[in-house]
């Protein structure tokens, strides 16, 4: 007999603890916003401009010596951090050097780059520069704009799509869940000061996509059940729907998380922040589709005169055989 992660006939009342869970979500969001404004995000050079150099050496990284070597170059704000990763080999010591945007609008000049390289190689002759990225302040401003636009655009597009396929209450519920997920993700990035760059925006959008996926599955069932149980109160219908789809929700989140955790551990440090954002987003996304989206729908109520045949309420797709 196949193993069941979730028993067949669950009957959990997801709204019993609605005050607690919804309250927790609201508190979480407020804390995230406070963190965002107090601690701020650790923006990568994509958004601040500047230069980031990745160094690799055979000898252990001596952050102090690196800093001293660069101190004489008058580069302004320089951040040096050692990078650790389980995938590194023995004798592979990686550091990340970040230099603030220099005078003028262009990216860092080649003279600066050469000066930095020479200074660091005096500290450790085995030092190699495996990657160097430089973004001017002009472009970084545009990148921020594009990033905000794409997150808002994605949410807008989903709002419209769900509205077309379902009722507007569902659409608001779904987008509230998305705002919740994105806010909490930004909050945790502020809390742990993980580098926030363009790739994280892609991760945020993926979270939006995944979370909506989860929410839509529950909504789809709720729509079906609203037709099936015409007289049951909305709260019961939503609860039945959540219980019926629970094992799928857990199963899909489970397989996705399993795959992502493999990537988180083994995928190397270059994409760790990106994978972490998605992993975290899937956890909060699953939570929000169970506890946030439906709560909003319940608060707004749903018009239930489904019998009027003229009303295009976004029915089932036509049956398609394989």
């Amino acid at each position, binding site marked *: 007999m*196949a193993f069941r992660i979730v028993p067949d006939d669950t009957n959990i009342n997801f709204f019993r603890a609605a005050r607690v869970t919804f309250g927790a979500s609201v508190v979480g969001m407020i804390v995230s916003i406070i963190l965002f404004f107090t601690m701020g995000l650790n923006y990568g050079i994509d958004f601040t401009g500047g230069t980031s150099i990745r160094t690799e050496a055979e000898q252990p990284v001596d952050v102090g010596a690196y800093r001293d070597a660069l101190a004489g170059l008058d580069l302004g704000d320089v951040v040096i951090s050692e990078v650790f990763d389980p995938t590194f080999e023995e004798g592979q010591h990686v550091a990340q050097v970040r230099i603030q945007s220099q005078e003028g609008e262009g990216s860092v000049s080649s003279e600066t780059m050469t000066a930095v390289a020479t200074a660091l190689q005096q500290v450790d002759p085995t030092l190699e520069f495996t990657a160097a990225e430089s973004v001017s302040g002009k*472009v970084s401003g545009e990148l921020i704009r594009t990033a905000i636009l794409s997150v808002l655009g994605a949410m807008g597009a989903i709002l419209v799509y769900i509205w077309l396929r379902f009722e507007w209450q569902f659409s608001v519920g779904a987008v509230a869940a998305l705002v919740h997920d994105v806010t909490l993700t930004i909050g945790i990035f502020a809390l742990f000061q993980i580098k926030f760059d363009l790739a994280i925006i892609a991760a945020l959008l*993926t979270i939006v996509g995944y979370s909506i996926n989860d929410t839509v599955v529950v909504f789809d069932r709720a729509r079906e059940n609203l037709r099936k149980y015409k007289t049951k109160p909305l709260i019961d219908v939503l609860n039945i729907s959540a219980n019926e789809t629970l094992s799928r929700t857990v199963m899909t989140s489970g397989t996705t998380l399993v795959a992502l955790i493999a990537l988180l551990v*083994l995928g190397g440090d270059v*994409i760790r922040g990106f994978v972490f954002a998605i992993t975290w987003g899937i956890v909060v996304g699953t939570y929000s589709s169970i506890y946030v989206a439906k709560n909003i729908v319940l608060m707004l109520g749903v018009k239930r005169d489904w019998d009027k045949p003229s009303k295009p309420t976004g029915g089932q797709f036509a049956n398609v055989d394989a």
Partner: protein
Amino acid sequence: MLHIPLWRRLFVWAVCLAGLLLALPNAFYQRVERSNDAEAAIERGLTTQELEFEAGLWPSWLPDGLVNLGLDLRGGAHLLAEVQVQDVYATRMEALWPELRDTLAAERETVGFVTREDGPEGELRVRISEAAGAERALELARGLATPVTTLTGAGASDLSISMNGTLLTVQLSEAEKAASDDRTVRQALEIVRRRIDEVGTREPTIIRQGDDRILVQVPGVGSAQEVKDIIGTTAQLTFQPVISRTSDASASAPAGAEVLPSLDEDGIFYVLESAPVVTGEELVDAQPSFDQNGRPAVSFRFNPTGARAFGEYTGENVGALFAIVLDEEVVSAPQIQSAIPGGSGIITGSFTVEESTNLAVLLRAGALPAELTFLEERTIGPELGQDSIDAGKLAAIAGGVAVIVVMAVSYGLFGWFANLALVINMILLFGALSMLGATLTLPGIAGIVLTMGMAVDANVLVYERIREEMRTAKGPARAIQLGYERALSAIIDANITTLIIAAILFTLGSGPVRGFAITLGIGILTSVFTALFVTRVLVVMWFERKRPKTLRI
């Protein structure tokens, strides 16, 4: 009830087979890459035994498309340059000043003395001494303007001229500025492309981005600085007298002469006088055109000094060969048909229309028309790229195995159907990426791993539904059918929303992020296909053979 027509089954398997064939080259990446490179070389006309052998490494009847590796995986340089289009405005005004001065000076009685005053860059300010001649001066200046030659700016004048008292102000009109910007960026793009092509690295990407930007991606170079050095050198265009034509590369050049290779004709060299008659700096325009016999040609125009030198030289050397040299290579060496006094001429040769257009572009594009400033520079070392590939591969395999175990434990035999579909899904994904020539980036690998996790989602939806239907429906066949039918709307809605996200990421993202959008988007399509079609065929085939009374799902 569960019947699936034969043609539909065949179609499903045919798609899977096609996917397998398209994905196959990626399993032998280096081998296929070497074979493709060799085939490309043979196509260019090079043929050696070694190349033939290399080309034979991969059978020609098999698909040979590969998934391109992005810069973050292969290593290389990425540069975003902004063309300083306004540089051209100032140059144009400088060139206009002598002409304007001469025109006004010719009517000194009406306009009086003409003096130039300082003004902002790109603006020409001229003061005349006779206030009464203001109107005439304005009229004369307007006479120098020509209509703008673009679709949008048709009919507009290229100069914006105003008269304030005795001060005449001339600058480029808005329409001309727009047209000029576009030309400048095109020229810069053409030059950058030509210079990088000359270095001969594999598959550089050189595209225009936005109004005034050029994106350059060169795989395999050690640093962005190298690329900047290549782009930064100015092209040298000269017109030099030809002494002789030879196929001997080691031909000795007499004093004051040099031996240069031909650009188009392999193995042909020209012995030229080193001192140029005219240089490209004195060229003001070059356009593709046709000669009197209707053959494609290139017409060009020099500035006054260039025109004088050119006129004198051609007058004295009718019948001689005259070389047009670009970056130490002879573009063409036409014969001087007659003296060319007016400072404009025409280059004929055995051109096609396309060649004459390119030559015109090159002549105009001798030097970069405006300065490039670099807004973004990224270098990724090849070792870091290889590390990322290795880490990504390992993570993908580990993630895949973990998903397979979870599915097998949860759904037993049906789990294995889904697992087989997952493998087919990955094959189809790689097949599609290869067919489209899409670029795989590091976030793209993350997209694949995410797809693996989410790919089973559609199957999970169906299986969970079948479990539910088993409790109410009459018999397993009905349950399977209802399971697929009723899960459909959830699957479609859930995946369309994700597809919307992928589309937004693709439109707004760049580079690595775009790579992620591609794998995510294609992954959704292939996973819906495998879940709705492939596993369904598998389940039905199994069901037809076993006819079970209950389903263990």
